[in-house]
């Protein structure tokens, strides 16, 4: 039952085809006529009548629920430990050890990095898997296949691509060329300094991903595809995650059995220090960067 | 007798049914031989068990520490198994002829055999959970039989049957669980298995549970609130109605109630309690109600179904007396009524199979066309009414005596109800007999155009047979007649040998 298929970009194309045609040369009319854009109003199904919809039947209930929950939470807040009080229950032996022995045990100057990548690494392994899951599920839904595309849509997409290619924004491109190296460098810096300063794999990876996205939006995804394909994406993500998982498996299993697994930690404060944390940070950075760009690419074009 | 034989008697019908469902017996004759063979073998084993009961129960396995799956042959089992083992082969013989015009014989006889095994399982169950298991299975095995025709009527009847039976089973489950929780053993012992020290302070609750489960198991025995499925279920083919709804299913309900009262909770615990009053009142109501409804209905099978409802409550009344005499009278009526009612149903089935008529008012003057059928019918009617020395009289007499011995108000009411019901029975049975032998003003049915179902009308063989039978003036088939003759002989025999039977019952029921 897929009579009413269409694409997200129809609105965009209608705007492109509309009266305010300001970036297509007027001579080029052939290109404008070729795809048949179905009008949105035609494809809409008849709206259900009021009786069928239980519109607003839960509104009162929801408001009541939310107000109740919020007031209870406010009351609880009043009963909770004070903000910023050093005598709070959270300030306990756990933190003491993280701070006082962290450098010695993990080799990371950044206590947070040491905590998430060494003390509580199992959580973080789960977190990285969530990213993989999210990427996979988005690909499952949006990667082009016979169910979610039809030839007409492809035609429209090609047309749209054509327009885009021809009208690359020069300002954006120039600025990107200036900014991109800095962004990438900064991202790499944040990733590999994760154990020394604020940041780490997640933030650095996000910066790298943003850089890639910027490049893609300035020069088109095709340009990125020259160096970064589906295959690269898969191999990079899975091998990074794999490295992560195998390192952690090694640490978990040996550590639990009381065997000393300590990788030489190096001098705290140096770049190549803190043993596995450095490696893991890099892995996380790669995963996050790839996933970020992957999201962008799949959402815009349906492929990487 | 080694107790492992019990397993054989249970398994033989299942194996028979399994072979029947496979395409190994293509010929009808072969199939009939196979079916008859399985039934006879099962009956033989069962009779051997009845005559020489094994001493020890057969323990299969423990479900939990309180729930054991076990079989045993005690006095009550012997009576019930005897009844079943006698009547099943006869019904099989009868069904061969009857089922010719219904179709779907393979399926029918498959479930028919399975039901035999399950009923024997109920008879030999030694614990409450075994009884419950076979009780549930009985519903499931007889449901396809009730829904045999698979038309709307049959489906409605089947749904109703399922609904009532499942509610009954669910209520019955309560007593299974409560009994297992408040007793040390779960093997049936006459006099009850409740651990009196644990019961202290919980009497009312347990009696309430008893009453609820009594009504639950009573659904199968068509006790008052749960009777409605029985008249509707008479859409099933007659052998089913006869055997399952006059003997096996309903008697299984009665049997379960007896187990519950005498072997589960124990009469000592229940007698004089509110639970006894409630259940007894329900049986008294059902006795009168069933008779009245039977008199009202013109549909032949339904009249007998209501009569069954009423007569089952005789038995249930005997059960709720909660005395030894009550139990004895109840089991006596269980046996006698089983034989009598199956005879009556077979007569109805014979009429329906040959003419397709369902309503009594159309039967005028059929007596001369089907002499043996209606002679048997008359005999059975007399027995059901309770004319001495036919068996119905003895069992009613025993019931009345037991009620008087109990001496409570409701007991006397019950006695009165039985009297009234006997009168009503005379009315509704004799009106048929009169109608048949002394036709009223209504024209006798035109035999050349029988009222039949759609499917039968299509079958040329059937029409030919009807036409030929109409020419010869006789409408009876040999095998059916044979069955009817055997049954009437049995009725007469039971009537004359009532003394020894009662004595035998007395010995085996008091035996541990």
């Amino acid at each position, binding site marked *: 039952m897929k009579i009413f298929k269409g694409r997200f970009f129809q609105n965009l194309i209608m705007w492109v085809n509309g009266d305010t045609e300001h970036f297509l040369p007027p001579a080029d009319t052939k290109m404008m006529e070729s795809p048949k854009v179905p009008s949105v109003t035609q494809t809409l199904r008849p709206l259900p009548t009021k009786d069928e919809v239980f519109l607003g039947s839960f509104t009162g209930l929801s408001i009541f629920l939310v107000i109740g929950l919020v007031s209870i939470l406010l009351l609880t807040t009043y009963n909770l430990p004070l903000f910023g009080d050093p005598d709070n229950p959270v300030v306990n032996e756990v933190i003491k050890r993280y701070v006082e022995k962290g450098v010695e045990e993990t080799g990371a100057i950044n206590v947070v990095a040491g905590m998430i990548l060494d003390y509580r690494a199992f959580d973080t392994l789960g977190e990285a898997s969530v*990213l993989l899951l999210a990427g996979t599920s988005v690909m499952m839904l949006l990667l082009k296949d016979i169910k979610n595309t039809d030839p007409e849509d492809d035609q429209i997409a090609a047309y749209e691509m054509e327009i885009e290619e021809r009208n690359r924004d020069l300002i954006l491109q120039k600025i990107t060329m200036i900014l991109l190296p800095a962004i990438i460098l900064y991202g790499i810096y944040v990733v590999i300094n994760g154990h020394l300063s604020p940041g780490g794999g997640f933030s650095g990876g996000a910066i790298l991903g943003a850089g890639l996205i910027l490049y893609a939006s300035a020069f088109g995804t095709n340009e990125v595809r020259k160096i970064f394909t589906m295959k690269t994406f898969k191999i990079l993500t899975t091998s990074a995650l794999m490295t992560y998982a195998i390192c952690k498996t090694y640490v978990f299993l040996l550590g639990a059995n009381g065997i000393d697994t300590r990788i030489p930690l190096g001098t705290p404060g140096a770049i190549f220090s803190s043993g596995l944390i450095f490696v893991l940070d890099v892995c996380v950075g790669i995963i996050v960067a790839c996933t970020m760009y992957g999201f962008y690419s799949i959402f815009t074009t349906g492929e990487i | 007798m080694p107790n492992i034989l019990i397993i054989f008697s249970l398994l033989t019908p299942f194996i028979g049914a399994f072979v029947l469902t496979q395409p190994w017996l293509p010929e009808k004759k072969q199939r009939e031989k196979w079916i008859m063979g399985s039934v006879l073998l099962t009956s033989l084993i069962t009779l051997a068990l009845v005559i020489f009961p094994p001493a020890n129960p057969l323990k299969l396995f423990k479900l939990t520490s309180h729930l054991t799956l076990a079989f045993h042959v005690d006095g009550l089992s012997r009576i019930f198994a005897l009844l079943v083992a006698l009547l099943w082969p006869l019904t099989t013989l009868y069904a061969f002829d009857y089922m010719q015009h219904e179709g779907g014989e393979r399926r029918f006889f498959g479930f028919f055999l399975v039901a035999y095994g399950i009923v024997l399982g109920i008879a030999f169950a030694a614990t409450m959970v075994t009884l419950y298991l076979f009780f549930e299975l009985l519903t499931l095995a007889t449901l396809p039989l009730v829904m045999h025709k698979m038309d709307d009527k049959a489906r409605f009847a089947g749904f109703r049957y399922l609904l009532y039976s499942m509610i009954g089973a669910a209520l019955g489950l309560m007593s299974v669980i409560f009994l297992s929780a408040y007793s040390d053993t779960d093997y049936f012992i006459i006099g009850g298995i409740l651990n009196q020290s644990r019961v202290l302070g919980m009497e009312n609750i347990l009696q309430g549970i008893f009453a609820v489960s009594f009504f639950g198991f009573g659904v199968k025995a068509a006790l008052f609130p749960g009777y409605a499925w029985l008249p509707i279920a008479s859409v099933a083919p007659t052998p089913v109605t006869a055997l399952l709804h006059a003997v096996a299913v309903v008697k299984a309900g009665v049997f379960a109630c007896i187990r519950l009262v005498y072997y589960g909770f124990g009469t000592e615990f229940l007698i004089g309690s509110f639970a006894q009053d409630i259940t007894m009142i329900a049986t008294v109501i059902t006795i009168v109600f069933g008779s009245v409804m039977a008199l009202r209905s013109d549909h032949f099978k339904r009249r007998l179904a209501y009569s069954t409802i009423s007569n089952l409550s005789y038995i249930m009344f005997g059960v709720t007396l909660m005395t030894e005499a009550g139990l004895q009278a109840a089991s006596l009526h269980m046996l006698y009524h089983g034989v009598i009612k199956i005879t009556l149903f077979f007569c109805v089935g014979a009429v329906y199979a040959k003419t397709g008529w369902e309503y009594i008012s159309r039967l005028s003057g059929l007596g001369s066309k089907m002499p043996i059928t209606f002679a048997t019918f008359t005999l059975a009617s007399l027995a059901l009414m309770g004319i001495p020395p036919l068996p119905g009289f003895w069992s009613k007499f025993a019931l009345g005596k037991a009620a008087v011995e109990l001496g409570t108000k409701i007991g006397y009411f019950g006695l009165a109800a039985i009297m009234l019901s006997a009168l009503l029975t005379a009315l509704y049975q004799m009106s048929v007999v009169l109608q048949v032998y002394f036709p009223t003003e209504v024209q006798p049915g035109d035999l050349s155009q029988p009222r039949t179902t759609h499917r039968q009308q299509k079958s040329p063989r059937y029409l030919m047979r009807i036409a030929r039978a109409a020419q010869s003036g006789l409408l009876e088939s040999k095998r059916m007649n044979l069955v009817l003759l055997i049954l009437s002989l049995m009725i007469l025999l039971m009537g004359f040998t009532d003394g020894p039977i009662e004595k035998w019952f007395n010995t085996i029921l008091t035996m541990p």
Partner: protein
Amino acid sequence: MNNLLKTMINDRFMIAAVLLFGFGFMNLLLQKNLIRKIISFNIMESSIFLFLASQGYINGRIAPIIVDGILDADVYINPIPSGLVLTGIVVSVSVTAFFLALTVRLYNIYKTVDFDEIMLLVNKEAE
């Protein structure tokens, strides 16, 4: 009264977080537009993170990155909430992406992002 006010001012982050949470929650329930639903979900999650992060702060202490080799627990704030918030953010990003992907697919099929309408149309859909 004074006491209550003092506590309120002191706990301003927590109160703001609760109010934001309520705002997000209400919108998540009541908004019909799927995109807005997603935004409200994000607001809700962020409010939880705000709450959590505010729990980590201790007056007058600095971020838990060891400076000058001072290994004293009384100098740095609580590092645990920061780590938990990090995990939470990643989860919330992933879920948002999935949610958006579903929305895109539904929009492609039904040409609407109104949740009620979509549910109605979905219910009418043959298997």
